[in-house]
């Protein structure tokens, strides 16, 4: 749509745009070149700094760390989806004694910074006699936060289903929970699928917070590999490798979200609100 912002460029505008383009590329090349030069000048591209990649033990360790990241992600994602569904339904309940606590819980966990929650479970819960350990401190925090966000996403989705759907379902004699289960929820999930997947990307990224409580995931592995003196403490090479892994994983998931969004728009299952993207952006961050 933004292409409507300007006319098709004429000859003079084309020259100008090309000039700006060349200038921009020069700036980027200069910046990248400078960073690359610093990498080179400080010896980051030298063989010894990358040799660790060739050792089988270290490769296996790297895979173990990747497994730890993905393990925390999968467990937390499943729990968060369940939490979200449960609390979305509870928030739409007709009983105030279900609706109000659900509202309070969801709002509370959305407002508390994830780091504070993780530190709380890791440092404070043992004082109360509950020792969760690093994995569950991380997973439970991720579940509570992302589950609360997902609860809002599901709820927004169900509320965006056209009124007629609900009315028709009641008119056919379906019960409250049948209406919810068989009519509202499937449509909401279908319409909200892109947002749900984007939230899972957020969850995947947030597993890196496990670094702060020494969960042995990718970032801790990078810290460890980067401190090996026999390879000249290759922190920059390891950061580059780990960064590439994260970007690949998240881009793959984001691409899935993008695909689902295009598909839902094509099949006409997108939300009827005109700026649904802004609404979902508001919920998801």
């Amino acid at each position: 749509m933004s292409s409507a912002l300007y006319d098709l460029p004429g000859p003079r505008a084309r020259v100008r745009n090309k000039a700006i383009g060349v200038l921009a590329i020069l700036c980027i090349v200069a910046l990248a070149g400078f960073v690359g030069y610093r990498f080179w000048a400080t010896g980051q591209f030298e063989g010894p700094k990358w040799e660790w990649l060739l050792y089988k033990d270290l490769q296996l360790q790297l895979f173990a760390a990747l497994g730890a990241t993905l393990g925390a992600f999968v467990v937390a994602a499943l729990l968060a989806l369940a939490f979200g569904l449960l609390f979305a339904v509870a928030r739409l309940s007709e009983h105030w004694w279900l609706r109000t606590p659900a509202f309070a819980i969801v709002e509370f966990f959305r407002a508390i910074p994830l780091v504070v929650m993780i530190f709380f479970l890791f440092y404070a819960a043992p004082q109360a006699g509950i020792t969760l350990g690093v994995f569950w401190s991380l997973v439970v925090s991720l579940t509570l936060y992302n589950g609360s966000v997902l609860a809002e996403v599901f709820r927004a989705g169900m509320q965006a289903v056209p009124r007629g759907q609900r009315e028709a379902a009641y008119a056919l004699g379906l019960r409250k929970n049948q209406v919810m289960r068989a009519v509202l929820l499937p449509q909401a999930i279908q319409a909200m699928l892109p947002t749900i997947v984007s939230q899972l990307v957020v969850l995947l990224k947030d597993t890196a917070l496990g670094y702060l409580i020494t969960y042995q995931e990718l970032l801790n592995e990078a810290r460890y590999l980067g401190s090996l003196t026999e390879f000249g403490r290759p922190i920059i090479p390891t950061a580059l490798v780990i960064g590439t892994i994260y970007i690949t994983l998240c881009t793959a998931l984001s691409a899935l979200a993008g695909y689902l969004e295009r598909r839902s728009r094509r099949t006409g299952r997108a939300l009827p609100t005109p700026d649904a993207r802004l609404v979902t952006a508001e919920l998801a961050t």
Partner: protein
Amino acid sequence: MIELLLDNRDLFITGFLHTILLFLLAGLGALIIGTLLAAMRVSPVPALQLVGTGYVTIFRNTPLTLVFFFFTFAYPRLELVNVSFFTRAVLALAMYTAAFVCEVVRSGINTVDVGQFEASRALGFTFSQTLTTVVVPQAIRSVVPPMTSVLNSLLKNTTIAAGFSVLEAGQITPALSERGAPLLIGMFWIAVGFGILVVPLTATQRALEKRWSVAR
């Protein structure tokens, strides 16, 4: 309960002061970089579009913790200008949040009706005139709520700096744990602190929405 707050007031005051500072500086930086990126992404120059898109794709798909990690551990190895941990935290937060600011601004621009663009073009406005006098004043209205939540998550994200040698609100829990203070009460006060910090944000959002709630 209040004793804990008074006994450890040094922690709470420096902690939240640094959080506020981090938030303000990084927020300002993110708004500036993000708006520039959005302008690049809608500009008629393909090279600029590519740069904007690349930046957003990379930073949206990188964990903020990794950005912090890079600035804390990898940056000094490049032997560039020596800056404090606090400055590096501001840089990490600003660069990361800018990608989200860019997306919000861009989708805000997309909510403006195409007819508006066409009309201003028909009137002979240039690209920058169209953007500044027609599109942005309208886009800004739909941008306020999602922008508030981006800033809100920036406020919460400042706590990640706790893991990277910056004493701010996220650092309070481990520090209290070291002092052997009851953490449940500490947690309560941290939550209260963040609650207080969020209030002005939401108030600003309400005020702006009310002020700009003119019928389109």
